[in-house]
C-alpha cells in the first residue's frame, strides 16, 4: 500500500493540537518543555476551556510560552507566578488558572510564594518542570541539583556540606493542608507522557472543582545544560534523577 493512500484526513490518528500554534519554539532540540506545552494545549482543548484559561508563565526558558500556546497568559516576575495566579483565580473564579514554572523559579526564588499559595489552598494548578539546573542562564546550580552533579557553578559536583541537599519541593508541598493533589511524573517515553497528561488533567479538574492546589512536578531533561544529547539525557535522567525524585503520586485526596 502506498504512503499516499494512507495519508488522508479520515485516517488521521495524531497531530499537534491546534491550540499549539505554528510558531517554531525557541527551545533547544529535545527539550521537555515542548512536550509539556503540547500536553497543556491538548488538555485545554479537550476540556473546551480555550476561551476561559489564564496561564501564568515564569522567568526561565518557559518565559516565552505565550508565543506557543494560544490561551491568555500573564508573565509574572521571577518566582511570583503563584501569587499572580492567586489574584487571577480569586478575581475570575470560573476561569481555569494554572502556573507553569521551572525549578529555579518555583523552588529557589519563588519558594515563599509557592509554599504560601499551596498552604492557602488556592484553586490553581502548578505545573513544575524540574530539570535540576538553571537552563536559561547557562546551566547554573539550582536547589534541585543532585548531589555530585556537575554544573557551571559547581564544577566539581554539588557538595552537601557546601551547597546543601537537593530540595524535595514536592514532598514539602504534599505535607501542607492546602494541597489536594501532588504528583511527580516525567515525559521521556510515550507511556510516561500519557500518565503525565492524565495527571495534568486531574490537576485542572481539581482546580475547577475548588478542591485546593494541585502540583504536578515533571522531572525533565535539560540536555544543553547537562551537556548531553537528548536521548542520552533521557537515559541519564532515568538512572540518576529518578533515584532522587521517585515517580508517582505524593498526595491524592
Amino acid at each position, binding site marked *: 500500500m502506498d*504512503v499516499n493512500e*494512507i495519508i488522508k484526513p479520515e485516517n488521521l*490518528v495524531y497531530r499537534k493540537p491546534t491550540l499549539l500554534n505554528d510558531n517554531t519554539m525557541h527551545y533547544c532540540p*529535545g527539550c*521537555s518543555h*515542548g512536550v509539556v506545552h503540547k500536553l497543556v494545549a491538548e488538555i485545554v482543548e479537550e476540556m473546551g476551556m480555550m476561551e476561559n484559561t489564564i496561564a501564568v508563565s515564569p522567568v526561565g526558558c518557559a518565559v516565552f510560552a505565550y508565543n506557543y500556546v494560544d490561551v491568555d497568559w500573564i508573565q509574572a516576575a521571577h518566582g511570583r507566578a503563584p501569587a499572580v495566579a492567586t489574584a487571577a483565580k480569586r478575581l475570575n473564579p470560573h476561569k481555569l488558572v494554572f502556573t507553569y514554572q521551572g525549578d529555579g523559579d518555583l523552588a529557589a526564588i519563588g519558594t515563599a510564594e509557592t509554599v504560601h499559595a499551596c498552604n492557602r489552598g488556592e484553586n490553581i494548578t502548578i505545573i513544575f518542570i524540574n530539570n535540576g539546573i538553571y537552563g536559561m542562564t547557562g546551566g547554573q546550580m539550582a536547589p534541585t541539583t543532585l548531589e555530585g552533579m556537575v554544573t557551571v557553578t559547581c564544577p566539581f559536583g554539588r557538595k552537601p556540606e557546601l551547597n546543601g541537599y537537593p530540595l524535595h519541593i514536592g514532598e514539602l508541598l504534599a505535607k501542607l493542608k492546602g494541597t489536594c493533589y501532588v504528583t511527580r511524573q516525567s515525559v521521556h517515553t*510515550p507511556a510516561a507522557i500519557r500518565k503525565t497528561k492524565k495527571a495534568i488533567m486531574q490537576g485542572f479538574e481539581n482546580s475547577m472543582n475548588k478542591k485546593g492546589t494541585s502540583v504536578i512536578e515533571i522531572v525533565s531533561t535539560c540536555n544543553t545544560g547537562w551537556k548531553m544529547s537528548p536521548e542520552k539525557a*533521557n537515559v541519564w535522567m532515568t538512572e540518576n534523577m529518578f533515584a532522587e525524585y521517585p515517580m508517582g503520586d505524593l498526595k491524592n485526596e
Partner: protein
Amino acid sequence: MAKIKGAIIVNAERCKGCNLCVVACPSDVLALQPQKVNQKGYNYAYMANPDNCIGCASCGIVCPDGCIEVYKVKL
C-alpha cells in the same frame, strides 16, 4: 488478525533533529536525514522504512515540537 499500516508526515522545517522520535519508534521506521538539512541546518527526521510503520503515534507523542502527523489504516 486485521493488518494495520501507518504513515507519518514530518514537518521538516519545524523539526530540530533531536532524534527522540527515532528512539521512540518501536519498528525502526524513522531516521534522521544523513545529508539533507532544513533551513535551520538540522538533519530532520524522515521515514527511512515506510513499510514497517504501524501508526502507533509514539513518534508524534514524544516529539517536543509537534512536527509529526500520524495516519493509520486497517487493511
